[in-house]
């Protein structure tokens, strides 16, 4: 088993061989076909670090975030938070960890209960922190709203009176109200206007610095992830296929999937001639071997028989590809 230590500081979150299977029900239970949403993932998040998690829709990145937060029960594997295994805890025993791990959601129109005022939404968080007196609560609501760049008079209004960006800010305030140490940002800007995206991203960066938050930043936009993260993990069909420092993954991708993702980033230059490189083609298989092999320009016979293991190819740069060494040495041409 490979553990990926990020930097030299102590890990806050450690994920060991975690998997989540969903049963696809047939008419009878026995027809059930297993879907591996997350398949044997190992991750380590150092205190104060931001790990970007990218992948296409359905690659399991949101599921992984929810597993770490224990919003879902993992089918296999361990989640170690502050040195304690929380993967099998439930109910009351999980409660002390709940407050330390929070989440910011993707859809700003779904993240706030439309029937509650902003003050009531924030009170729910404050109640759990034990802020009970009306005076204290009121002060806290004002402080939280100002923290996320909102005016205090937002408190008495309803979610439908705010724009998407403002709702995301309120969602962030709700998460921060319980003073978490770890934040999962589940595509927090993908539903926003580009002009608003930057504001929310900068707010998250600022708050992270201010509170020393550890963050798992989930996105499908590589440029956004690069802006936010220290390290990047690329997910494909429930597995992490490449993990490494931001620039290392971005400029020297060693997995063919990462490479095609980066090629897919549009470059705003009308004079640029698009590189004549193979783009993503083919269907996604579900069988033994490397899940990417049918779409991979580098596939060899080994890829259809043997699943590639995650291994360190360069300094803290991990790849799950049989041909990563060759790629790193420059022996393969795409």
């Amino acid at each position, binding site marked *: 088993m490979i553990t990926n230590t990020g930097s030299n500081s102590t890990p806050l979150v450690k994920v060991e061989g975690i998997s989540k299977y969903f049963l696809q029900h047939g008419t009878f239970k026995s027809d059930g076909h297993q879907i591996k949403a997350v398949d044997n993932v190992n991750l380590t998040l150092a205190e104060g670090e931001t790990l970007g998690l990218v992948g296409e829709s359905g690659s399991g990145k949101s599921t992984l975030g929810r597993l770490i937060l224990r*919003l879902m029960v993992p089918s296999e594997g361990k989640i170690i938070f502050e040195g304690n295994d929380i993967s099998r805890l439930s109910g009351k025993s999980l409660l002390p960890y709940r407050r330390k791990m929070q989440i910011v959601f993707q859809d700003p129109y779904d993240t706030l209960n439309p029937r509650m005022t902003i003050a009531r939404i924030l009170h729910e968080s404050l109640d759990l922190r034990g802020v009970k007196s009306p005076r204290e609560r009121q002060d806290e609501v004002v402080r939280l709203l100002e923290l996320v760049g909102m005016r205090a008079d937002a408190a008495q209004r309803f979610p439908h009176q705010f724009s998407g960006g403002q709702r995301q800010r309120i969602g962030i305030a709700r998460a921060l109200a319980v003073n978490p140490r770890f934040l999962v940002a589940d595509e927090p800007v993908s539903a926003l206007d580009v002009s608003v995206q930057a504001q929310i991203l900068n707010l998250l960066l600022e708050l992270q610095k201010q509170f020393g938050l550890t963050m798992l930043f989930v996105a499908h936009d590589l440029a956004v992830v690069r802006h936010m993260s220290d390290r990047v993990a690329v997910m494909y069909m429930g597995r992490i296929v490449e993990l490494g420092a931001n620039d290392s993954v971005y400029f020297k991708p060693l997995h063919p999937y990462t490479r095609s993702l980066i090629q897919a980033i549009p470059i705003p230059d009308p004079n640029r001639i698009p590189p004549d490189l193979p783009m993503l083609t083919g269907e996604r298989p579900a069988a033994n071997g490397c899940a990417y092999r049918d779409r991979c320009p580098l596939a060899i016979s080994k890829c259809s028989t043997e699943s590639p293991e995650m291994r360190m190819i360069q300094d803290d740069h991990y790849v799950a590809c049989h041909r990563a060494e060759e790629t790193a040495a420059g022996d393969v041409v795409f």
Partner: protein
Amino acid sequence: MTNSGNTSASLATATLSPIRIISNRLFRNPVAVSALILLIFLHLTALFAPFLTPYSPVTQRLQDYYHPPTKLFWSDPGGSFSIRPYVAPDIPTPGHQFILSPQKRAPVIFFAHGYAYKLFGIFPSAIHLFECRYPINILGTDDLGRDIFSRLLYGAQISLSVGLIAIAISYTLGLLVGGIAGYYGGAVDNVLMRLCDVLMAVPGFYLLLALTAVLPTSLSATERYTLIIVILSFVGWAALARVIRGIALSTRERSYVEAAKALGVSNLRIILRHILPETSTFAIVSATLAVPGYILAEAALSFLGLGIREPTPSWGNMLASAENLEALTQYPWILVPGIAIFITVIGWNVLGDGLRDALDPKGLR
């Protein structure tokens, strides 16, 4: 307001709560408002029945059976116009004709003393809205010579409250069971929903008949009334629970429910604060539309003699005397409770429709 200093007047008007928006919209619908006023009026008459009625619902004047509605004279014995109506005595003849003696007419007395009662079961009184020296039956009498007007108002106490209380019980049950089943899902959901299926698989009215038929005859009127409400609620909650469960199933996938889970809010609190309010639009409308069902069910049971028993009046058992065609053609006033049921049912349905329009989320923002 956390910061009233910053709050401008325009902001305050923009901050109407959803409840205010909905009630504003309901009150702009004249048909729904008329229905609401009508229902409030009906329930008030039921509430004040002892004061409004000249006779106790069980007082019999056997010689006056099937007496037609009393003729009111708008002039005194001298023949000059009077705003206070006069009532003349009459004598029944063998051919069931009533011979009036208009010269002996006596005035109706308002706020007069009559039979003693307790208003709302608490305040003792004997004051009635109107009384007269001679029998006054403004809606006629039934086969035992009882005043139909008095019985109608006392019957309303039972017929109208059955619907409301049964709704309150069955909706509490349906919302909780549906909310729990939908929120937890899995085995809990399966067990609860199969229970609903079993209940729903039995034809509702036969289940009602079977359950009421086993009630012992020795029960007091109050006990019988209570048990009938419980039985009605018991039959009614399953279908609701299924719908609520469906809404709960979709609501639990909403991000704000996940956020509450991530915060560590307890499951019961999530169900009560996040899941069930999401069903409120549906629940309010369907409850309003379901009230007439319970009123009709009680009427049907009482009509068949399995509901409220004589002499306690209910609209259903009053109608039972109208089942005979001869009585119906000769004494059409005994159909009055049927008209009352009709008006009430229409009222609830119209109000339900108005509420549905007012609660329509498409117009909410």
